[in-house]
């Protein structure tokens, strides 16, 4: 897993170098590689497709400009995710919006072409995430969805590792209590660890 991520990071660093030299093909490659992940990540902050596209483009506009300033202190993916997160919060602030608190909102959602199983899984996830705050959703997405470590999440969200750890813990406790119920199961010994 780590080796695979290292390989991806090596590829991304080469793309950044080419971008620093003005190579738009490299920019397009990186854009396509991260578009899906960023869109999914940002969908935890807003449900508006136009805003998500704008934030992704803000992120890559900055990446294009600052590609030569990337010193490799983190993975390229962490760097990009951090830019996207800050652009997302800024875009929401400028519009006077808050990160979606009612995760059940479905405005801007495209028609579903998912197989039944995926759709059920999606609905189950959507209902579960309704119980989390925006900060908790972001941490859950980054840890379970993207596969980031606590330190990487701290870098992306510019929060102390302890804060990230606490957010993850509380999010997991909430999910442990609601996921079985949402799945139609009884929560098995759910109070044991709380």
């Amino acid at each position, binding site marked *: *897993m780590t080796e695979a991520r290292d390989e991806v990071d090596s590829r991304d660093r080469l793309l950044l170098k080419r971008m620093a030299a003005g190579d738009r093909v490299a920019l397009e490659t990186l*854009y396509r590689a991260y*578009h899906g992940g960023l*869109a999914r990540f*940002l969908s935890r902050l807003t449900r508006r*497709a136009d805003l998500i596209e704008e934030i992704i483009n803000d992120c890559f506009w900055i990446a294009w400009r600052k590609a030569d300033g990337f010193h490799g202190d983190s993975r390229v993916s962490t760097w990009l995710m951090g830019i996207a997160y800050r652009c997302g919060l800024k875009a929401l602030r400028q519009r006077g919006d808050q990160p979606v608190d009612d995760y059940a909102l479905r405005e801007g959602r495209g028609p579903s072409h998912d197989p039944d199983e995926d759709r059920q*899984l999606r609905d189950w*996830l959507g209902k579960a995430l309704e119980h989390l705050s925006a900060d908790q959703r972001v941490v859950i997405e980054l840890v379970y969805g993207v596969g980031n470590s606590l330190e990487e999440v701290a870098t992306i969200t510019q929060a102390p590792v302890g804060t990230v750890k606490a957010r993850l813990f509380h999010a*997991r406790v909430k999910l*442990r209590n609601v996921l079985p119920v949402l799945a139609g199961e009884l929560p098995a010994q759910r109070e044991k660890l709380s």
Partner: protein
Amino acid sequence: MINETNAGKDCPRAWEIMPWVLQATAPPEQGEWLMHHLAQCEACSTEFAQQSRLRSALALPADVAVDVNAGLKHLFERLDAPEPETLPDRLHSGSRLTRALAVAVLVQAIGIGVLGARLWSEQTPQYRTLSQPALLEPAGAIRVAPDASMTLANWDKLLHDFDLRVVDGPNAVGAYTVVVKGSPATSARLLQELRASRNIRLAEPVGNAP
């Protein structure tokens, strides 16, 4: 199944490492330990299954449709545009700098003005005592030196009779500088009359005065 004593020790540890085992970033021995624990603990096994399902759900593509090709097209259009995003910022910061410089110059000018006025007022006092040296003798001035027997009453009478006003003195030799009230000129006759007056030792015009 695991007993309560072991659950008290092992379940929190299992809970702690589940996300990292799911990510496959935990050390292999931790993964093996967790699998062993799950085989004995139904609660943790259920929890792990829920988290695996959560991970699967989060791995699904975004449920908000965002067109990658349209986004990329818009990004390239933006890169080709004449930097509309930075231009206003630059202009804004430029105008702010100009305003700040103007304010600084204005404050500096006011400061210089205040200091200048203060220095000017210090150099040109609005009053002067007779014991201070005269900066400039007025036109038609006469230096008059009374002798030691001149009384104050006689001195006042003399000034009154000749319509004189003391503008300076006494100097080191006891002489006063006087002028005729309302007249910048001094006549030779006035000088002669002053010299002839009682208790006057000396009466001489100052500078080029006759």
